[in-house]
């Protein structure tokens, strides 16, 4: 279960240059990347985003470059998960591989407004909007993928399996 988090709303086709501009890619340190997360979409975002907050966006979130720095920056900024109408392919894979939970729900993407308080059930894929008293359904990940995300991503998951 992802705890309660405040929604930060973005539009369609949020590209990876908006998530983390290339001018900051001369480092791969998560904490350094977090300081510039979503900066070109909203320069105040890195300062106002709080631990456990949730990014909500429209279709094709994470389009563009393959930079894994994008989900790394989001995760390191304290964002608990991303809810979007749809995700670009490489971002989708990268987010899971580094253990950033993501949920696809066009209905949630449309109805959630900035500042809404949300609660997400990872196991069932149910998104509860506590502010508007609505629920939305995202397709939940199969158990192995939930385990992978919980482990912190693919590498930690594979390494953990090896030790068992």
């Amino acid at each position: 279960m992802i705890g309660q988090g405040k929604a930060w709303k973005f539009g369609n086709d949020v590209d990876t240059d908006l998530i983390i501009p290339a001018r900051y890619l001369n480092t791969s340190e998560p904490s350094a990347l977090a300081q510039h997360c979503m900066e070109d979409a909203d320069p105040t975002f890195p300062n106002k985003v709080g631990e456990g907050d949730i990014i909500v966006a429209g279709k094709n979130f994470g389009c563009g470059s393959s930079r894994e720095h994008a989900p790394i920056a989001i995760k390191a900024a304290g964002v608990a998960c991303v809810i979007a109408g749809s995700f670009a392919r490489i971002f989708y894979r990268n987010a899971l591989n580094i253990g950033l939970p993501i949920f696809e729900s066009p209905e949630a993407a449309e109805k959630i407004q900035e500042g809404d308080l949300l609660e997400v059930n990872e196991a069932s894929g149910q998104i509860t909007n506590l502010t508007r008293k609505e629920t939305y359904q995202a397709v939940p990940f199969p158990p192995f993928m939930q385990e992978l995300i919980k482990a912190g991503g693919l590498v930690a998951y594979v390494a953990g399996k090896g030790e068992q």
Partner: protein
Amino acid sequence: MGMTITEKILAAHAGLEEVVSGQLINAKLDMVLANDVTAPVSIREFPKLGKASVFDKSKVALVPDHFAPNKDIQSAEQTKIMRDFARKHEIENYFEIGQMGIEHCLLPEQGLTLPGDCIIGADSHTCTYGAVGAFATGVGSTDLAAALATGQAWFRVPESLKFHLFGDLQAWVGGKDLILYIIGKIGVDGARYQAMEFTGETITNLSMDNRFTICNMAIEAGAKNGIIAPDAKTLEYVNARAKRDYKVYQSDANAKYLQVFEIDAATIEPQIAFPHLPENTRSVKEATHVKLDQVVIGSCTNGRLEDLRAAANVLKGKKVHREIRLLVFPGTQQIYRNALAEGIIDALVEAGAAVSTPTCGPCLGGHMGILAKGERALATTNRNFVGRMGHPESEVYLSNPVVAAASAILGRIASPEEVR
């Protein structure tokens, strides 16, 4: 049931007779690529995978092209992580500055991407290699780390979209205009998760350089890969470069496509993508009011010899507008040398262009031509996202090389017709 070329390549690399779209497979890889931005993240993860060495040191390519020659101390440190890794693991295809080129120009030129290959790269424009009839797709650094260790990757077999292009091209129209036109029609997520297969007489008549441009930008429609089945031109290109065997695949006549697009290419005019998405396309005629500060010719999209030659032919004997900075980036050292030998570089420099060593440079706002607040550039690159070439309040327009050259002369977006 027939299979597409994409399905056939994936089936062969998964050791299966047949695959269908939607199927999850584990495939063997022929080439695994990373650059100075993406490799350091993979290299940090690699030791955690418990492998002492990479799966095959001849099947890994590491190219310092994004922020190299290094723009600052931090990027120098990142590149050093990759260089040290390449030396430690005796990576055969590590290209030092001086041999380096922009990765997606360099690898095909070196014969490292061949028909029928299954390739991943930690760079979204890895889809470029579809132009030689390979399956090639971009991944992130963690997938790449796993591939460095195992030589394998899992894929969901994509549905295929077929783009059948017919008709002769108008003057000043090339591969860039065809792909921009298609992205304008289907949108930046119009091929999300899918394979884009390009066929028809228009494609057959195109040179390899133009085909690379088309497959390069498949990602800008959200595609997993772009692909053009090999023909006589492909084989001539790869046979001059290949150092190993390869296999040619063709789509079956009864292969299944999610959708088939019939495109009359004769109606397509030179295209401009307006800020801030590649899908915002218009004909060049509708863009001639746009005043510019900078023009960039180069990148993995349009930094090949034909691109430079076409631009030089427009600029020859003319001068770059006094309020324009024209920056030219040859894709590889070999392209640079060929352009020198042909007099292309001389014509460009005489016109007033600044010619650089190969690098991704300003395409992703790295270095070598960053825009200030409010400035506007026309570029032959692939993305015009917010802040892509510098300040978040700067603008990037996309075009082909001849439109870029004409625009550099007139100081605004212009058709080559206007400077003849």
